[in-house]
């Protein structure tokens, strides 16, 4: 069972999220209201996943994010999903830079209400994947002088879905193409972004990182 520490300063939403997690078979070991308590909770118990709001007391700026980055440095392999009130590429890139960009998710806070999608995203992250909010991806793909300008429309679509943490099979289903076509698209994307062909499966994450870094 996945052990989760939940950090959110609003009591109602914290309880609601704890309910969602329990309903889907996560074990909520701690539900806290600020960044300090979050760090303490992870230190004292075994934790697989941290779900935290970025904006928390006392400063109401990026306490949750800083705590998340600190925790990932201290506990390699810890999966982290941060919930953001608004889109900040710095947040996303700081997070993706930590721990090699694996087991990490950056979602707009409003996404939690689509319960099934939210839980899927959590599971992807726990499984070592990367999830970036589709609004972030949408905005990045529209940015001028983007390294992704060389990508075709279909390749952008595929990259967006990769960034959201979907597998090749899932992408193929969504785009109504064969999995082989998706593999080909991903190969083209990696080549165009200059990501060297290695045996490392992490290349997909590198692709997401490449454009986040380039555009921040």
């Amino acid at each position, binding site marked *: 069972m996945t052990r989760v520490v939940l950090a959110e300063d*609003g009591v109602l*939403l914290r309880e609601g999220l704890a309910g969602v997690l329990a309903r889907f078979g996560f074990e909520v070991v701690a539900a806290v209201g600020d960044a300090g308590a979050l760090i303490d909770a992870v230190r004292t118990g075994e934790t697989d996943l941290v779900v935290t709001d970025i904006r928390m007391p006392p400063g109401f700026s990026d306490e949750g994010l800083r705590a998340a980055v600190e925790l990932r440095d201290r506990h390699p392999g810890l999966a982290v999903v941060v919930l953001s009130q608004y*889109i*900040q590429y710095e947040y996303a890139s700081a997070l993706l830079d930590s721990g090699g960009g694996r087991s990490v998710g950056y979602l707009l806070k409003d996404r939690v*209400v689509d319960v099934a999608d939210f839980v899927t995203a959590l599971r992807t992250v726990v499984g070592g994947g990367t999830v970036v909010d589709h609004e972030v991806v949408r905005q990045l793909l529209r940015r001028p002088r983007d390294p992704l300008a060389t990508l075709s429309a279909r390749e952008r679509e595929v990259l967006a879905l990769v960034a959201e943490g979907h597998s090749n099979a899932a992408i193929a289903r969504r785009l109504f193409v064969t999995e082989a076509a998706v593999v080909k698209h991903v190969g083209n994307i990696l080549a165009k972004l200059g990501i060297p062909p290695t045996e490392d499966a992490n290349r997909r994450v590198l692709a997401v990182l490449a454009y986040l870094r380039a555009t921040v």
Partner: protein
Amino acid sequence: MLGSLRRRGFLLSAWPWRSLAYLAGTAVIATPVSIAMACVTLPWLALLGWAVSGHERGTSVTVPELVAAVLVGAVLVTTLGPALAMPLAALERRRLALIDARPISSGHRPPPPGLAAWLRARYTEPATWREVAYAAFMAFVVPVGYGIAALAVFLDLVLIASPWLAGDSANEISLGPARVITAGQAAPYAIAGVVLLPLVPYLFGLLASAHGAVARALLGDAGHAALREVSRSRARLVDAFEAERRRIERDLHDGAQHRLTSLTLQLGMARLDLPEGSAAAGPLATAHDQAKELMVVLRDLIHGIHPQVLSDLGLPAAIRELTGRSPVPVTLTVQSGLDQRPPERLESVAYFVVSEALTNVTRHAGAAHAQVDLSGTGGLLVVEVRDDGHGGADPDAGSGLTGLADRVAAVGGRLLLASPTGGPTLVRAELPWNR
């Protein structure tokens, strides 16, 4: 003062006496002022004298003489004039209280530190030269005006005294066109003089008011103090308004938005547990979707009141978020000098400028690309928004530019717009960091 002249009890009020005191004071002060001003303007007066006497003799002033006299006079007036006029003005402003209850404040700006800076400020501000004009008025106009009034009063006194004057001396005395020899003959003139006597205080009042009006016009601050107070109070209003927006934003976020998110989450949960196709599933799905739409509406509303990212992370981050939302691609450059956060109201105004300008770019400019520059140099926070659209933005056409200019002016800044037909358009706001 002029109002009290029209009132019925004027003669019995303190005003005639106040006027008399003012006029007497003027007489005392005007004498040395006239002498001093005559010295300062001596070359000009001499020139005038030469010209008049030369005209009578049939000679004329030569050009070098003319130029020399004008120049020397000008040098004397510009150097010594203010030195004479400023203390006189200070005295006259105090004295004006005798006949004018309205306060009068100097039009001089607060002096900068250092003698050289003080001199430069004083010699270059209009208030100083209006005071010099007042000194000239005091020196050359006042003696003539007061002299005429004094003559009128003197004549009335002579009329009243004429029976005694006539009785004492055996000689005939001349009262204007008439001549009287005996006291009896003089009696009607004396009666006329007594009848005219009540007019004397009115004459004093009128003369003092006229002088007072000139003094107020030349020595006051021409409404600048009132204007300063108005602009200060406008700045306070803007601050209060800004604080209120923040409070509303916080209340909405901590209360309504948080509860709505929680409610929507609960609806989402309930939806998962209802079997597909059951009677309640449809309405519940609708409720969930509507709640999600409401979340978007509320988020946009809160963002419009006061963007949370602005309070949390400051201007560059907030503008970055703004440019991310813009349908037209935007490049943002943040120059150095913004390491320190500007005062809140400047951040707000700068954000508003960029937000409005980008909205205009999207709606009107037909641009393919926009560029936002943020910098904080030389005590100014400068934001620039330029686009490659077709230009021709008209501030009068209701494009929100007027409102923008008002908000910028309220923090003491200025808004510049360059938008030739055919483009490009540049909107630049300069906001003074300290005020």
